[in-house]
């Protein structure tokens, strides 16, 4: 147990927690926006892969880092447009379309990678986002490096959390989005377009998922690997439920998951890791997430019209 205490008292651990959580926060917010509008977006995993590649490829081809983020977002929105077109006006099964988008986006990305870099054996590196150290604040012991010595994308993730929360609760747009997920008929009766709201939500949400993917190639690492998203999209789906469809709680969930993840990596390097198979450590964040999900989401208010296609004129 002393190993755990030591890890918890190290600043690098807390910095890692925030870093690991960042891509999850982007993608979770994206998924949350889709679901609040009534669309389950299972394309998330593939869209993250596409975003990771698109942003990195743009920078590798010579654009600036922020342009790369925009390119990733654009790529995500394109897949979002496809998802939204199939699920909203055509009203197809959101499960099937979402899984299809994940498969399509993943394989299209790998294909594009091979087309763009046919000869390479190991992926080239780009110059990723560097940490911005906030003067003075980053010197606070323990939490200073965690909160004030991160890359700009991490700061953006936390700013976005607040923005999404405020838009959802405090603006007419947020009210309309939530109503589209609760009772689309009410939205239409008030003269708004359910199709427009839901498609917009899926596109913006997918864009954020792609930025989450791009964080991996442009901030956490500096290259693109196959399998690098590695199920993070699916975790984000669970985090939305864990957070009871509320941005703040979902982000807490992302931090919690990241903490388990950072902890298990470090535990593997302690004497404990010599005795216990490392697969058990790898499992812990997922097992604990499932447990937390069971405990937290009992009374969650799922959007009433989630996964229910809305067809005008049939009632």
């Amino acid at each position, binding site marked *: 147990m002393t190993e755990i205490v030591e890890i918890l008292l190290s600043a690098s651990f807390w910095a890692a927690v925030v870093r690991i959580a960042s891509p999850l926060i982007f993608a979770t917010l994206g998924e949350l926006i889709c679901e609040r509008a009534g669309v389950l977006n299972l394309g998330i995993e593939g869209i993250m892969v596409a975003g990771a590649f698109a942003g990195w490829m743009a920078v590798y081809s010579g654009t600036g880092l922020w342009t790369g983020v925009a390119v990733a977002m654009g790529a995500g929105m394109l897949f979002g447009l496809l998802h939204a077109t199939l699920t909203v006006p055509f009203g197809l099964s959101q499960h099937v379309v979402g899984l299809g988008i994940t498969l399509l986006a993943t394989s299209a990305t790998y294909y594009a990678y091979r087309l763009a870099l046919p000869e390479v054996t190991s992926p080239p590196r780009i110059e990723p986002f560097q940490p911005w150290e906030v003067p003075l604040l980053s010197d606070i012991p323990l939490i200073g490096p965690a909160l004030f010595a991160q890359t700009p994308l991490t700061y953006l993730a936390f700013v976005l959390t607040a923005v999404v929360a405020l838009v959802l609760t405090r603006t007419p*747009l947020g009210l309309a989005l939530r109503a589209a997920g*609760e009772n689309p*008929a*009410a939205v*239409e009766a008030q*003269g708004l377009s359910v199709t427009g709201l839901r498609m917009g939500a899926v596109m913006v949400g997918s864009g954020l998922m792609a930025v989450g993917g791009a964080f991996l190639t442009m901030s956490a690492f500096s290259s693109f690997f196959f399998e690098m998203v590695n199920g993070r999209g699916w975790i984000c789906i669970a985090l939305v439920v864990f957070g009871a469809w509320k941005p703040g709680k979902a982000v807490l969930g992302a931090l919690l998951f990241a903490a388990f993840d950072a902890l298990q990596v470090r535990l593997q390097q302690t004497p404990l890791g010599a005795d216990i198979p490392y697969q058990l450590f790898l499992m812990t964040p997922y097992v604990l997430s499932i447990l937390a999900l069971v405990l937290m989401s009992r009374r969650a208010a799922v959007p009433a019209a989630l996964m229910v296609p809305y067809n005008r004129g049939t009632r």
Partner: protein
Amino acid sequence: MSGPDGAARDVVLRLDGITKRFGKLTANDRIDLALHRGEVMALLGENGAGKTTLMNILFGHYTADEGTVEVEGRPLPPGAPGAALKAGVGMVHQHFTLADNMTVLENILLGTEPLWTPRLGRRAARARVEALSRDFGLAVHPDARVATLSVGERQRVEILKALYRDARILILDEPTAVLTPQETAALFQTLRKMVARGLSVIFISHKLNEVMAISSRVAVLRHGRLVGEVATADTDRHRLAELMVGSEIVTPAPGTATPGAALLTLAAVRTAPRGDRPGLQGIDLSLRAGQITGLAGVSGNGQGALADLLSGLTAPTGGQMTLGIAAVTDWTPRAALAAGIGRIPEDRHDTGSIADFTLTENAVLEGYGSRPFSRRGVMDWTAARRHAADLIATYDVRCPGPDARIRLLSGGNMQKLILGRVLETGPMVILANQPVRGLDIGAVTYVQERLIAARDRGAAVLLISEDLDEVLTMADVIHVISEGRLSPPFPRGSKTPAELGAWMAGQGFDHAA
């Protein structure tokens, strides 16, 4: 165009040659209508006459195949609810369009401000909603979650939604279907206040006494055509009914019957609550042979709990349930069937039938497990089909044949098949939960006559209905249900509708207990 009198100049809404077809069915056939400032116009017609379709076209939910809509002299673009709202048309749908998990204020504010406005002006909005509530007598708390409101309150929210947007024309689609007589009276007060301020109201209904009470003019639709337009003062219920149906109406006369022994008795029976709906709170009920027991009440007050209990879907959590003379112990849907309880469920689409199954399959849904429909676990489809054909002939089910999918049938014909399925087994207790809701008058009369005939052969009938008139006509003895509590039995004619309405609103229970 302009008529000699002032009223004609004051046309706020004009429908011109509206035609709408759904496949082969012409739901609206060249309908012309004009609504004047400051009047309540009733739109009368049977279910399926095309009232709701017409209003959905007016409001932009549907696009008309032909014809135009003009509001205050300006044409309304088709298929755009937003444009209708902007032109001052508000609609209260039969099925409310409220988001249950959001507050009253949020529901009212939805879509009233441009989407990209940075803030919802909640404070100013709340003040306005409160002022409107006071002015029009529409009491409801702005911060209450819609899910916690009663049906009457939800309707008030719908009306507030329209008033908040400065609606000049309000369309109410069957607004009284879910209200107690008292709530209906309050609604009428609100409507009178509205027309006194120059608003215009279209009141859609098939209830003649309400149409006579609130409207100044009546337009009657039948089979998608406008068949009459009269000033309410110049007509009466009888003439309106004839216009609506197109022929003389024969209402079934239940007559009197001598009740026999109690076939099913509940003593202090309780059931578990269902979500935020109450369970039964210790009710006493005795269903006698040769008697129709009517259950009146506002929807969601425990009718569902009682129906589920009698169908065997739920078991009592307390009290004593007796069938004949035997106390009930192991209570399941199978047990209920075996005990001779015939069940006509509330929702013929949802629980009464399986839409994509054939008439034959639906006809044996309850009896498929035993002879003659199956032997040693193998279905005998010949026997099943013969049975379905018998039901179709005996119960006058209009359909392509026993192999047609039941979803193709009209509500009335579907209900006749279900009725046949139940009655042919000769049940001793018949649970009829809203058996005529949504049927046209012909089918209503048919179903009611069959229920009366079942009573006359000695069955105990429990008729659950949200339509007080139906209960008053049919039932030999009436109970009122409110919040899971059951009133004492009132013999036919011993209580006025207003007195029953007071019980429906929950008054009387405290003194009676």
